[in-house]
């Protein structure tokens, strides 16, 4: 038997404990989704009488499907917008010399220091004055571009040698085509990291969508699920079923793009 160093054993033990702490709530969520209302407080991980009734009920409830679609629409549009505009601004800041460039960059960066809680009130007032309350645009507008994404993309574009851009300039590409056809493909790892972070962030967003929406047809999934907890009593089994389904896109993204997520985290540091 190969000798195992004590350091290894300690590391494995710690990782195992960490893993259990991370996975237990997920298992519990899945387990609860398979119980009926009477069994919810029976805390066994493996349900005594597993049932798919909750799933059937939730999926046949038109509201849930609506919320799922709402979340998809919001997350996809905001992600596309971020990938496009963050990289456009990041590229401009990284590759063009113009008066005030540094001030613009610092101004963008400094917005990172303002906590969301402080911004919610001005956002709300703004949305209310423009008539954006209770609309998709109202949910999406604060996140259409982010300082974090701009900063991330700027850093990556700085790593592209100018020779590529100059060669393209000589080949006859205009500045937009240089960005789109040459610079963008060269930062794909950063783009996928940005896309993943943005999608997940918006998929799970709760606070702002809760504030800006009032009609149930416009709820995003997290907001909709929370309504199960207020309307009558707390329907844990429904919440957990909805949450299990809501985890699916995240899980799929993670399975397919694991490589990029790890790379993105390593390159960008974790987004707070």
């Amino acid at each position, binding site marked *: 038997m190969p000798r195992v160093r004590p350091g290894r054993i300690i590391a494995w033990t710690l990782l195992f404990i960490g893993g259990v702490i991370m996975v237990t709530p997920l298992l519990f969520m899945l387990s609860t989704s398979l119980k009926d209302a009477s069994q919810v407080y029976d805390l066994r991980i493996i349900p005594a009488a597993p049932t798919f009734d909750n799933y059937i009920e939730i999926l046949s409830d038109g509201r849930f499907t609506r919320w799922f679609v709402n979340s998809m629409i919001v997350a996809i549009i905001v992600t596309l917008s971020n990938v496009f505009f963050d990289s456009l601004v990041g590229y401009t800041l990284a590759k063009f010399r113009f008066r005030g460039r540094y001030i613009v960059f610092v101004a963008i960066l400094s917005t990172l220091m303002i906590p969301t809680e402080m911004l919610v009130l001005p956002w709300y007032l703004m949305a209310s004055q423009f008539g954006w309350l209770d609309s998709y645009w109202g949910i999406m507008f604060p996140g259409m571009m982010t300082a974090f994404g701009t900063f991330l993309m700027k850093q990556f574009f700085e790593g592209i*040698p100018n*020779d*590529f851009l*100059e*060669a*393209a*300039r*000589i*080949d*006859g*590409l*205009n500045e937009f085509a240089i960005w789109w056809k*040459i610079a963008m*493909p*060269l930062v*794909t790892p950063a783009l996928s990291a940005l896309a993943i972070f943005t999608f997940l962030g918006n998929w799970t967003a709760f606070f702002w969508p809760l504030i800006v929406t009032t009609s149930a047809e416009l709820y995003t999934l997290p907001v909709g699920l929370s309504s199960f907890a207020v309307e009558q009593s707390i329907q844990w089994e429904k919440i957990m079923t909805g949450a299990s389904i809501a985890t699916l896109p995240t899980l799929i993204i993670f399975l397919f793009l694991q490589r990029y997520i790890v790379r993105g985290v390593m390159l960008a540091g974790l987004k707070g």
Partner: protein
Amino acid sequence: MATIEIDRLVKKYGQTAVVHGIDLAIQDGEFVVLVGPSGCGKSTTLRMIAGLEEISSGQIRIDGRVVNELQPRDRNIAMVFQNYAIYPHVSVADNIAFGLYRSKLSKSEKRARVEQAAETLGLSQLLDRRPSALSGGQRQRVAIGRAMVRDPAAFLFDEPLSNLDAQLRTQMRIEIKRLHHRLGTTSVFVTHDQVEAMTMADRIVVMRDGRILQVGSPLELYEKPVDVFTARFIGSPTMNLLPASLKENRADLSVGGSVKVTSLPASSPEILIGARPQDFTPGTSGRPGLSVSGTVVVVETLGSETLVHIESGNQTVIGSAPGRHIPKIGEQLTLHVPAERLYYFDRATEKALAAQ
């Protein structure tokens, strides 16, 4: 094909001028090499011709048309970069096709042009590969392919061979030269390597500190350098320069010995006498000239010739012996240059003095 004319071209970064009003006229179909040490302004000049740097003042004309304000894409030039700058995310064929980005040719015509260029450069088998699967020499060929598909008015080369190993560099040098012979396109080539300059150029432009020191054919520069800088820069190993003082019609060297000279227009009696190592051969011929004796300190055997470094006084002089004649270190040796192979320079101004 086109002529390129440069008039009083100046480039300033803030208050610092890096190109000080240079003039140059490049003929149609000519291969001109800009050569000089780093920071001499050669690359900046090339980039101004390409339109990648703005011009502070002066004028650039390509085929008689003033291009000062034109975008690079409107100048009909092609450029090959030191780092190849081929796009890593597309295939070799697509890379070459980028050269035809603005062309109005049909898809099939474009494809034919790309294949033709690939054939010329020996890239036909590699068209579907990504650049990451290519060697340095192949990458540079792709870059050249992208430049040539367009049939541009001029090729601009910015130290394209610097990143290649010595053997490949020699090979690419020959290939570029051949290509120029075949296409006859006006070419401007920037390098800091005097061997590249000598072997490739129709005309060499020697630059230093943002100024042109001398323009001429490789042989003109070798035979008639206008100053100490060019004399030392062109030719390998570097020309020997020995301090001497003029006295009536002879020059006394500080290492001993003297040479007969007549009427040198020097500003002071202090001059430098130059001799190329290849002209400095062992033994004393009876012919008039300069002899220097000293101790052999280094011997470099190259096969075809042997470079001999001798120390005389506190001066080291490099001479050349035939390949099979290998002097021993510590041996006393006399090297001789015939008088007509000597160069004279004013020590104060470093300008060449016409020898009589």
